[in-house]
């Protein structure tokens, strides 16, 4: 749980009485030199009238990482990305990218950022090619024609048709190419794989990985857990407009935890495996489901005494993380 130590503001919102939070926060911005942050927000709050968009959000994205912004619909993911691009103005707090204030240096920032909106809308009469040309012209910078062609080929997109003839998935691809083609330093992708077929989804994830390997930074929002698990270095979990946890994906998922289902010849008595360091989470007349932290050696040695017929690994997923934070029944993992 190292990240929490680095992120005092991420922890703050968990405390309930909102009135007491801001006083404690020092107004001075002390840029953390040790950590090269690309995106940084401090007690960022957006109200839509009386309705809350996000509250006291402290986000920190490091250079060169893929940061997954995870949460159910309406949690405030899109609002946060819009504040970063100065599309929505914060009610309180502030946000910066590359150390520049998002509101004051919006143009300079956006020159280095590629954005895929969550609901990507297009001008219907244009062809995708004309659209890309227009983007390049407005951005006012030379871009790599060959790379653009590579992108359209990899995403399996035919860019010669008018956009209104495209399906939702194809429009999404157009938006992706437009965001990626300038090789921006920072990619803000709002649900990048939504509406795409599985093969193309894999391509998108591969492109994100390539961006990271080139040293670029990616902040993507999602409610698709396997996807976040597959490509993100860290995840921030947002709920009701508050960032409630920031975790390293590796530590969280691939690290210390195992979850096993064991089928026995003779069912061991309750509590026996727990002595060996496991936690029993479920049992039928043949099976026992256990969670183990650390080494499996002791547990398995004890288990074979009862004749193990079968062993199934049930790896932890972010869904379990979600359940841990949200409690059962409040998530919609695969929309």
């Amino acid at each position, binding site marked *: 749980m190292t990240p929490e130590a680095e992120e005092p503001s991420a922890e703050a919102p968990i405390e309930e009485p*909102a009135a007491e939070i801001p006083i404690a926060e020092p107004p001075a911005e002390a840029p953390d030199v040790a950590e090269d942050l690309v995106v940084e927000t401090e007690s960022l709050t957006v*109200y839509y009238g009386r309705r809350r968009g996000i509250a006291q959000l402290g986000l920190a994205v490091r250079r060169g990482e893929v940061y997954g912004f995870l949460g159910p619909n309406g949690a405030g993911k899109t609002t946060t990305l819009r504040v970063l691009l100065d599309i929505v103005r914060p*009610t*309180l707090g502030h946000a910066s990218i590359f150390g520049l204030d998002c509101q004051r240096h919006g*143009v300079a920032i956006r020159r280095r950022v590629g954005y895929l909106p969550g609901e990507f809308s297009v001008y219907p009469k244009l062809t995708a090619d004309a659209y890309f040309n227009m983007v390049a012209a407005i951005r006012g910078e030379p871009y790599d024609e060959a790379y653009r062609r590579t992108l359209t080929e990899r995403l399996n997109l035919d860019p010669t048709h008018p956009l209104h003839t495209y399906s939702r998935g194809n429009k999404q691809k157009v938006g992706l190419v437009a965001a990626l083609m300038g090789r921006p330093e920072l990619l803000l992708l709002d649900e990048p794989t939504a509406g795409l077929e599985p093969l193309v989804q894999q391509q998108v994830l591969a492109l994100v990985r390539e961006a990271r390997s080139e040293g670029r930074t990616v902040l993507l929002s999602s409610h698709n857990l396997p996807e976040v698990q597959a490509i993100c270095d860290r995840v921030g979990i947002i709920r009701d407009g508050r960032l409630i946890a920031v975790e390293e994906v590796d530590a969280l998922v691939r690290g210390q935890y195992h979850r096993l289902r064991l089928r026995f010849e003779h069912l061991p008595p309750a509590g026996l495996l727990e002595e060996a360091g496991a936690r029993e989470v479920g049992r039928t007349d043949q099976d026992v489901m256990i969670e183990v932290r650390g080494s499996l050696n002791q547990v398995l040695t004890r288990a074979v005494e009862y004749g193990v017929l079968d062993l199934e690994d049930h790896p932890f997923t972010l869904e379990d993380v979600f359940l841990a934070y949200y409690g059962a029944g409040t998530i919609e993992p695969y929309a």
Partner: protein
Amino acid sequence: MLSLILWEIRRRVGTIVGWAIGLGAFCAAHQLIYTALPDEVRRIDVRALTLLESLGMQTFATFEGFMLSTALNLLPLLTGALGVALGVGALAAEESDGTLEWLASLPISRTRLLLGKAIAAAFVLLAIVALAGLITAGAFLALSPETPVTAADLFLVILVNWLIGFVFLAISLFLGAYLPTRGAATSTSATALLVSFLGNNLAGMAPAMEPYRTLLPHFYFDRITGMWTGEVGWLDMGTLAAIGLGALLLAFSAFTRRSLTVAAWPWQRPRPPKRLRTIAATAGGTSSGPRALASTIVALLGLALLAAPVAAYRELAPVVPTPLPTLPSAPTATPLSPTATSAPTTEPTAVIPPTSTPTVTPSPPPTATATITPAPTATPVTYTVQPGDTLAEIAQAQGVTLEALIEANNIEEPSRIEVGDVFIIPLPPAE
């Protein structure tokens, strides 16, 4: 920004072609109608028909009068509607469609984004009006109706419609930047346009409403078309341009300050609970003081821009409501300035083109009208009943017979007349 402008224009090539052909055909068709108009229709005294006058019609007797009563009368309404369509399409529609979010994510400032869109829309408007003018002038040359005006005059009088279109373009840009949805922006802009157009025509008939006309862009526009007779209304052009630029300024203020993609009415815009705001202020967070001051200044500036024409009008042309004077019987003297006849001033002033001074002397009409003059119905010398008057006394004092007076006014019970009744005094029968 240039690429944005070019892109915005290219996107609207279809609009340009369609509207230009439409407006051009509209004007050309009316020229054709005029050449085919039978004499009876030309002789109709439009001013005697209140409904037609309220629609801004003046006379059918001459080509200029006919065009100003029909095609050129409606053109500022159509151009205004075009301005509204372009203005709403530039901001509000794109915000509702979701494309504005994406545009705003590009490295271009809000000011430049709006400036680019405004310039492009203004250019599109100009292209449409100019093309429509060329089509109309072409039709004029082909039909060559009998009139002192030239094809170039006709082109200019159509081109000047750009100004009124620009005003409503700017107004709808502002409303689109300020209001949350496309629907809200469209309906308010369209309402403003209709109020301006109809209000100007209707208020022109009621002298008491005269000062309020100065709030309506179409009031100034009407006076500009007076230049058809040679008087160029530079002051009115300047006023219209100022109204347009003022609205544009408000549009910039609204657009650069608000959150986009948030379909919220102004009172629903982001504002934290009071509790959080005070805490933020003590913690040195964003203070709303300078912002509030700036918005107050902008609002006052806008109000001043709106109020200035009213004040100017009152100074230049004090309205003296007098009983209706004799209408000029020569139609050519009046068509270009509806203000003069409906709100007569005691003397010609700087703002009102001199051609509009009510005169009784019929300047010789160049065309067919010379042989048709004067239809008795068109001479409303009137008399307002005073206390103690009787019909017979009135008739005697005005030098007409009692029967003629009764007939002219359709009086059913000659014994019952009321103080304040207005009677038309017919001309004495020709010898």
